[in-house]
């Protein structure tokens, strides 16, 4: 559980492959879409989520129980992966899992901002990143945003947050703080990656993710027509956009769609882009992006069988599974029909 020592991909990949086999397949999803929230919870109790459902069952119920059990299971699985890995493998996996740290920081800041109960914030955290229990406890106990930043002083988020704090005080909106957290995460994600072949594959995957994130942001901005500077939301590191090209393309939806269609991702996202032009639905496009990323991850896991890539591929698939189950549970709660829910799922 440290960056010391030599990497041990054989061990981690063997464990991860075994766990991958127990992820839900088409059959299970079809069953789940026909169940009510209580039945879904029961179904989960008999699967890999059993322990978490039992632990939380006495305090929560219904969709909340499913949601918290999913979060906790995700955290435990990813913590275990970090626990097993050593050396450079640890560094490569931790890079990606730090996104949960970023998520936790944002959740805590939002909680402080809205004066939410400490326990309400706590259940929304996903303890899968690098932050230990002690730091998370201190984060939860902080009663002002200034206090949160103080706890994070010695992490990568400390300095960017401190800089954004002045702007926050002026405008009293959370956007600058959240942007600072995201940017700190993405900057760290792609810096100083090693040079061997699997690592390069991993890097191109991370770049694809940054590109897709930029593309969705730009599309959302272009569609909403809001008067926000797109460059402020730009994430460095991708291949597809530069700060200025993104700012220009976000002004015009048609140009942006054409630009993405002509890029190296055009083939995978083509059908979704056409749908976007016809039906004007961003949801389909965002699902297509998720599916493309997942397919990319699956392919990634088979090229170099003993390297970091199968691990990342599993992390993606697992994340997707919890999101699918969450979508089913929330859809059921809102009274959607099984067909409607199935269209919300991302399955490869």
């Amino acid at each position: 559980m440290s960056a010391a020592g030599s990497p041990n991909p054989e061990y981690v990949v063997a464990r991860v492959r075994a766990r991958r086999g127990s992820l839900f397949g088409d059959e299970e999803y079809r069953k789940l879409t026909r169940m009510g929230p209580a039945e879904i919870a029961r179904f989960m109790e008999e699967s890999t989520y059993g322990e978490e459902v039992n632990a939380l069952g006495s305090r929560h119920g219904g969709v909340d129980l499913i949601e918290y059990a999913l979060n906790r299971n995700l955290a435990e699985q990813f913590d275990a992966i970090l626990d097993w890995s050593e050396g450079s493998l640890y560094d490569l996996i931790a890079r990606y899992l730090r996104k949960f740290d970023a998520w936790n920081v944002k959740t805590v800041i939002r909680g402080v901002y809205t004066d939410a109960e400490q326990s309400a914030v706590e259940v929304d955290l996903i303890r899968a990143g690098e932050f230990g229990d002690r730091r998370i406890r201190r984060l939860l106990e902080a009663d002002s945003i200034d206090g949160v930043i103080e706890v994070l002083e010695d992490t990568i988020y400390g300095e960017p947050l401190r800089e954004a704090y002045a702007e926050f005080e002026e405008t009293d909106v959370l956007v600058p703080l959240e942007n600072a957290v995201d940017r700190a995460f993405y900057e760290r994600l792609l810096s100083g990656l090693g040079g061997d072949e699997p690592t390069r594959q991993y890097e191109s995957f991370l770049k694809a993710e940054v590109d897709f994130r930029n593309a969705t942001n730009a599309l959302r901005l272009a569609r909403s027509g809001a008067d926000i500077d797109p460059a402020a939301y730009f994430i460095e590191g991708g291949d597809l956009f530069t700060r200025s090209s993104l700012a220009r393309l976000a002004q015009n939806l048609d140009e942006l769609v054409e630009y993405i269609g002509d890029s190296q991702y055009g083939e995978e996202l083509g059908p979704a882009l056409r749908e976007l032009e016809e039906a004007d639905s961003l949801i389909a496009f965002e699902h297509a992006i998720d599916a493309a990323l997942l397919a990319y991850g699956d392919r990634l896991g088979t090229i170099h069988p003993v390297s970091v890539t199968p691990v990342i591929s599993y992390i993606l698939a697992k994340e997707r599974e919890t999101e699918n189950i969450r979508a089913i549970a929330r859809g059921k709660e809102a009274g959607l029909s099984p067909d409607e829910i199935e269209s919300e799922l991302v399955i490869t």
Partner: protein
Amino acid sequence: MFEATNELGNLALQTGGTLTDPNAAAALAVGLAALGAGYAERGIGSAAVGAMAEDDDLFVNGLILTVLPETIVILALVVVFIV
């Protein structure tokens, strides 16, 4: 370059160096084979232990696969009896 190698070979022959002793060479062959087997078993073993940690039924398969490279050492032992 080649002259230098020849020189070295002659020198070794003249002084009766250990490497020209067939027994020593055979011992070295077995040792190197064992080293190779050990390296192969390192990767297979850690993968096997990982798989076993997830599913106990894989114990027998894991054990068999882990000791497979050991055959290299047994084949190398043949050399010892030939020389």
